[in-house]
């Protein structure tokens, strides 16, 4: 076990753990945000640069600070490492710069986007973004296209995190979409439109940190904060069948995987609870599911806004 200090909190982790995962073991404010890294998908990370942290001391043997900020999702910890995330102004400023770059081509059509309310880029922009844009050039504009008959791709909103590509590589038998072109022209696409058709392709929607890949069966149906997320399960031969159904009254509007506090699909019985397309898109009747009860939602989340019970008993700030 190696000892590492993140924002003044000491934690001992397995050797080879990345700084980000060590911070996640502490939890709370010290966890750097991650747009491209997805712990359930090996190989992800290192692309978006939002998780940059300052290493104030490299290790106990060599306590010199690292000259540049490092990507915490792909930097392994060393014994005696001292990391600053929230406590470093330099990290905060840098992250603001990264957010500005991510938003350079982002259309900011949150009022339309189905991801609004559970969007990682929205959270990041809220915390680090500036109210004004310095970008004078025209943004890249793509028409939204249907990839497969259940998924809509809004390339305008994509931040090229490659998570969906890893999902296709690791969950499905063959990948039929990917990133075309390079640099400024890079875009997610299929060569033949409507080509994505695999039992697990719907998980692309869950891993997408922005609203680039959205559910066509839920498209513009409602806003997430008007729906009630309920934990539900059903016996499915293809997947674990454990999901969250988003209900309005007695109707199921959409089905998503269960996500943890980092926005990643939960692990249930040591297995990542990916959903098959059948459960996600076809089973929209209450009788299809065994609804277990309401899902615990963070009070600060907009999803808990519509309900009086959760907004009235807000935690009171104590004067100490």
């Amino acid at each position, binding site marked *: 076990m190696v000892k590492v200090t993140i924002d003044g909190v000491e934690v001992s982790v397995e050797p080879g753990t990345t700084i980000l995962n060590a911070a996640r073991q502490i939890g709370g404010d010290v966890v750097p945000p991650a747009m491209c890294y997805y712990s359930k998908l090996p190989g992800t990370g290192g692309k978006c640069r939002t998780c940059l942290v300052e290493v104030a001391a490299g290790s106990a043997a060599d306590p010199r600070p690292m000259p540049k900020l490092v990507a915490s999702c792909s930097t392994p910890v060393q014994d005696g490492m001292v990391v600053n995330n929230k406590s470093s102004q330099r990290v905060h400023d840098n992250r603001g710069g990264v957010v500005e770059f991510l938003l350079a081509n982002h259309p900011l*059509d949150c*009022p*339309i986007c189905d991801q*609004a309310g559970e969007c990682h880029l929205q959270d990041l922009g809220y915390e680090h973004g500036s109210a004004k844009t310095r970008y004078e050039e025209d943004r890249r504009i793509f028409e939204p296209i249907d990839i497969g008959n259940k998924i809509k791709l809004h390339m305008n909103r994509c931040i090229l995190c490659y998570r969906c590509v890893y999902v296709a590589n690791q969950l499905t038998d063959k990948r039929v979409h990917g990133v075309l072109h390079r640099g400024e022209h890079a875009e997610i696409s299929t060569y033949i439109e409507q080509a994505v058709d695999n039992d697990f392709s719907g998980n692309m929607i869950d891993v997408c940190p922005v609203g680039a890949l959205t559910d066509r069966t839920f*498209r513009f149906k*409602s806003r997430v*904060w008007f729906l009630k997320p309920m934990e539900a399960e059903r016996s499915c031969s293809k997947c674990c069948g454990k999901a969250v159904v988003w209900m309005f009254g007695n109707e199921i509007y959409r089905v998503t995987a269960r996500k943890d506090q980092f926005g990643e699909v939960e692990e249930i019985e040591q297995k990542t609870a990916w959903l098959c397309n059948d459960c996600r898109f076809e089973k929209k009747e209450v009788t299809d599911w065994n609804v277990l009860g309401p899902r615990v939602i963070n009070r600060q989340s907009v999803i808990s806004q519509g309900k009086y019970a959760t907004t009235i008993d807000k935690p009171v700030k104590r004067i100490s």
Partner: protein
Amino acid sequence: MESLTNRKKVVSDKPMTFMEKLYIPAILKGMMVTLKHMLKRRKTVKYPEETRTFAPIYRGMHVLKRDEQGRENCTACGLCAVACPAEAITMTSAERTKDQMHLYREEKYAVTYEINMLRCIFCGLCEEACPKEAVFLTDRLVPTQFERDEFIYGKDKLVESVDNRIDITKRQFTGKRTKI
């Protein structure tokens, strides 16, 4: 019990004096008050002929605005409904098709948009929440009705007509963004 305030007046029933029994000084005193008020400026207006001017930021009946090209601004984002403390706003949305480009400004539009005027407390939070400058409160009043369901205003009553625009310029520049 002893009174907590000293506002209580103790009633007395002592017999009236001769001067009081005449009543004339008291009547004259009362007439003086009346006369004084006759010379003062009237505080009321003759309502149907005369109306009071509303403050430019008066919060009356809502309007759903259109842009310069006559397209509806509202994109059914639901922020007004979530901001509404009285839960008066409901809406459903749909995707704009190719031949509706001239009707709706954004990709998504409100198929139905209803404000229950009986629930509404005219606080103006919907206007404040709106990111598309679509919903505004105006200086128009909600007329009285005989049935309760007539107070549920749909898009037919809320959206301004293309030729008869509702002027909201006075309230538009109150620190909000000016360019879309």
